[in-house]
C-alpha cells in the first residue's frame, strides 16, 4: 500500500505543479508584451486581459456602420411587426417600389418577399443617416421604430416579388470551385484566393444570415449599383464591412455577372 500512497502523492504533487505553472509562470510571459508580476500574471491566466476591463485612456468616438445590432430585443421588435398596420404605411412606398412592393423601375429595389430583418435594418440606417439615398432618408425619418417593423412585416409577406430563401436545395453538380462560369463560381464557391466568401451563404439561394437581404429576382441594375457603391465606399452600412471587403475586389464584369445571376434567378432563359 505504500506504493499506492506514494503514487497518490506524486499525482497530487504534479497536479499542484500544473496549477503553479499554469497560473503564475505561463501567464507571466507573452510575446511583445512586458513581463508581468505574479498577480497580473494570475489575472491574465484566468483570462483577464487589458481590453476586458474598463478603458483607462480616452478613446476616439467609434464610427459605426449602423446603429442596429441583432440583439434579442431588436429581433423581437422585428418579429412583432404587424403586417396589417404595415400595409397602410406601405401605401407611401407604392410610387417608387411598385404595387405591393414589386418594383418596375431599375432605380428602386423590389421589396415584396424581402426579409423583414433586412428591411428593418435598411430603414433604421436611412433614419440614422448611416445609409444615404435622397428621398429615402426623408421618408424613413417620418417613420417610428414600430412603423419600420410593421412595414417590413408587410413587405415580407407579399408574393410575386423576391424569392424567399428556403435554405433547402437539391444538390447539383458545379457548385464548387470546379465551376468555370464566373458568376456561378462566385455565388456558390466564392474565391478563396481573394478572400471572397460565396454570395450564396448570406444572400441565398442556399444560405441566410440575419440582416442580409435576399437577392433572388432583385432588380439586376439595383444589385449592380449597390455592389459598386460598396466597392467605392459610398455605401458603408454593412455591419462587419463584409460587403465593402468583397465588392472592392470584384471587377466590373464580375459585379454585372453576379447581378444578372441573381436578377434572373430561376427564370427560364438563364442558367441558375
Amino acid at each position, binding site marked *: 500500500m505504500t506504493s499506492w500512497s506514494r503514487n497518490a502523492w506524486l*499525482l497530487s504533487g*504534479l*497536479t499542484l505543479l*500544473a*496549477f503553479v*505553472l*499554469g*497560473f503564475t509562470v*505561463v*501567464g507571466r510571459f507573452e510575446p511583445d508584451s512586458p513581463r508581468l508580476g505574479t498577480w497580473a500574471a*494570475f489575472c*491574465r*491566466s*484566468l*483570462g*483577464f*486581459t487589458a481590453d476586458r476591463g474598463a478603458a483607462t485612456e480616452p478613446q476616439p468616438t467609434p464610427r459605426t456602420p449602423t446603429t442596429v445590432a*441583432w*440583439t*434579442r430585443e431588436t*429581433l*423581437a421588435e*422585428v*418579429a412583432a*411587426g404587424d*403586417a396589417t398596420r404595415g400595409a397602410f404605411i406601405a401605401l407611401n412606398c407604392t410610387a417608387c417600389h411598385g404595387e405591393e412592393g414589386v418594383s418596375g423601375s431599375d432605380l428602386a429595389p423590389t421589396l415584396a418577399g424581402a*426579409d*423583414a*430583418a433586412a428591411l428593418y435594418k435598411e430603414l433604421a440606417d436611412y433614419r440614422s443617416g448611416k445609409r444615404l439615398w435622397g428621398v429615402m432618408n426623408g421618408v424613413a425619418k417620418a417613420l417610428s421604430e414600430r412603423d419600420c417593423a410593421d412595414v*417590413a*412585416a408587410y413587405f*415580407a*409577406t407579399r408574393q410575386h416579388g423576391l424569392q*424567399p*430563401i*428556403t*435554405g*433547402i*436545395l437539391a*444538390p*447539383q*453538380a*458545379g*457548385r*464548387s*470551385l*470546379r465551376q468555370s462560369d464566373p458568376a456561378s463560381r462566385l455565388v*456558390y*464557391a466564392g*474565391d*478563396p*484566393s481573394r478572400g471572397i466568401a*460565396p454570395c450564396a451563404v448570406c444572400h441565398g439561394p*442556399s*444560405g*441566410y*444570415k*440575419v440582416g442580409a437581404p435576399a437577392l433572388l429576382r432583385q432588380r439586376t441594375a439595383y444589385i449592380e449599383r449597390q455592389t459598386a457603391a460598396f466597392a467605392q465606399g459610398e455605401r458603408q452600412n454593412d455591419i462587419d464591412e463584409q460587403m465593402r471587403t468583397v465588392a472592392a475586389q470584384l471587377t466590373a464584369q464580375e459585379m454585372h455577372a453576379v447581378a444578372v445571376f441573381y436578377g434572373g434567378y430561376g427564370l427560364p432563359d438563364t442558367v441558375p
Partner: protein
Amino acid sequence: MLRTDRLALCHFWVAFGLFLPAVVLGAWQMLMRSPLPAPLDDSNLYYASVTLHGTVMAYVLTTFFAMGFGYAVAVTSLGRPLRGIAAAWIGFAICVIGTLMAAATVIAGRATVLYTFYPPLLASAWFYCGVTLLVGGSMIWVVLMIVNMAAWKRANPGAPVPLALFAVTASACLWAWTASGVTAELLGVILPAAFGMTTQIDAGLARTLFSVTLHAIVYFWLMPAYIAFYTLLPQAAGGRLYSDKVARLVFIMFLVFSLPVGMHHLFADPEHGVGFKFLQAFFTFFVVLPTLMTVFSICASLEIAGRIRGGRGLFGWIGALPWREPMVLAGGLSLLMLGLGGFGGLINMSYAMNSMIHNTSWVTAHFHLIFGGTVVIMYFAIAYEMWPRLTGKPLCSKNLARWQLWLWFWGMLITTIPWHVAGLMGQPRRVASFDYGIPVVARTAPWVDASVLGGAILLISAILLIVVLVRSHFGARTADSPLRYALAVHPPLRVPAALNGFALWNVLVLVLVVAAYGYPIGQFFFVLKPHSTPAYEVTRSALPSDP
C-alpha cells in the same frame, strides 16, 4: 441468454448498417476536396455530408457498438442473464428513433452544422432532439451496466468482478460523465434557440461545454478496443493476460484522466485565459500513462503467447503468434496505428506545438488515424469474434476477414499520412473545395490525390466487412462456440475494494472536473455576463413574420 444475443446483434447491425453509407460519404468527401472530378460537386452537399458522416461515425457507430458490446460482455462474462432486458430494448428503441430523427434532418438539408454543432450556427431542432434522444437512450445502458455489476457483486461478496465487465462498467461511467457536457450544451444553450425561445446563443459557453465531451468521448470510443486488447486478444493469441491488476488500473485511469483535459481543443479560444488551457494540457499528458501501460501489457501478453507457441529469441515470439486469427492481426495493426497516431496526438495537445497545426487538415488526419484506424479496426475484430457467439454460426471466411483488415489498415495509412502532410503545408480543415489553380494550394494536390486513393481502399474494405458479416449471419448453424475471455497469468482471487468498484473514482472525477471546469464554465455566468450573439440559422424554413 438468447434474448441478449439478439439484443446485442441488433445494436451491432445498426452500428455497422449505418457505418457503410457513412464510409461512402467519406470517400466522396475525399474526392470533393481533391483536384479530381467529383460527381455532385456542391459545397452545401459537402457540409451536409460531413455532418452525416461525423454524426454517424462519432455518435451512432460508437454508441450502438459500445452498448451492444456491453450487453454481450455482461452476459458472457458473468454467465447469467442480463438484468433489465426490457429496459435495454426501450433504450435501443429510443436510440434508433433519435438516430433516424437526426439522420433524416441532415438528409433533408436542415442540419449542416457538423457533428460538433458549431454554435452560433443553428440547425433544425429535429437534429438536436435526435442527438439528445440518442445520448439519452444510451444512459439506460449506463444504468444497466452499473446495475448488473452491482447485482453480481452482491451475489458474490468479496469476489473480484470479471475484468471484462469491470472494464465495460468503467466505459459506461466514462460515457455518463462524457455526455454531461454535450447534454448541458444541447438542453441549456442550443435547444432553447432551436425552439425559438431565444434568438441568441452564447457560443463561448457552448464551445466550453462541448469541450467537456469532446476529448473524453474519444476515450469512450477507445474503450471497446482496449477491452478487447485486455480480454480477447491474449486469448485469441493463445496466451494469457500479463496482469489483471494493471488492466483494472488502466481502465480506472482512463475514467479519471479523460475528463479534465478537453480544453486542449480550445487553445485558440479567446474566451479563456492561458491558465486553464495550460492546466488541461498538462492533465492531458497523464492520459499517456494508461496508454503506455496498455502498450506494455499487451506486448507482454502477446510475448507470453508467442513463447508458449514456441517462439524463441528477442523477437522470435512475434513471428510465432497466430497472425491468421483476425483478432490477433487487428490487434497488431491497431497497435501500429496507435503508435503513429499517438505521437501526432502529443503534438496536438502540446500548448505550443498545437499552434502549428491548429485548424489544419493535420487534425482531421490525426483523428481519422487514431479513431478510424486504431479503434474501428478493433470494432471489426470484436465483431468477427462475437458474430459466431451471437449468431451460433461460424465466420464465413477468416481469409476474407483478414483481407478486410489489411485493406482497412493500408487504406487508413494511405488516406491519413498524406492528409497529415497536406495539413503541415497549411491546408485548412472543414473546407468543401479548394482552388488548385493557386500555387500554394497546388502543392498539396498530389497528397490529396493519394488520400482519395486511400478513401477508395477504405470503401472496399467497408463493403467486405458487411459481406463477411451478412454471409456469416445467414450461414449454416453449427454448435455453439462460447466466447472465452483471457485468463490472467495470476488470476485474481481477491482485489482491493478500490480496484473492484467505481465509487471512489467517480468522486475523484467530480473533484477534477470541478477543478478543471468550474471557473472556465462559471465565468460565463459571473464574469462575462452579457455574452450572447445572434444564432445563425444555417437553414431556414420560414420568414419570422410569416403568418
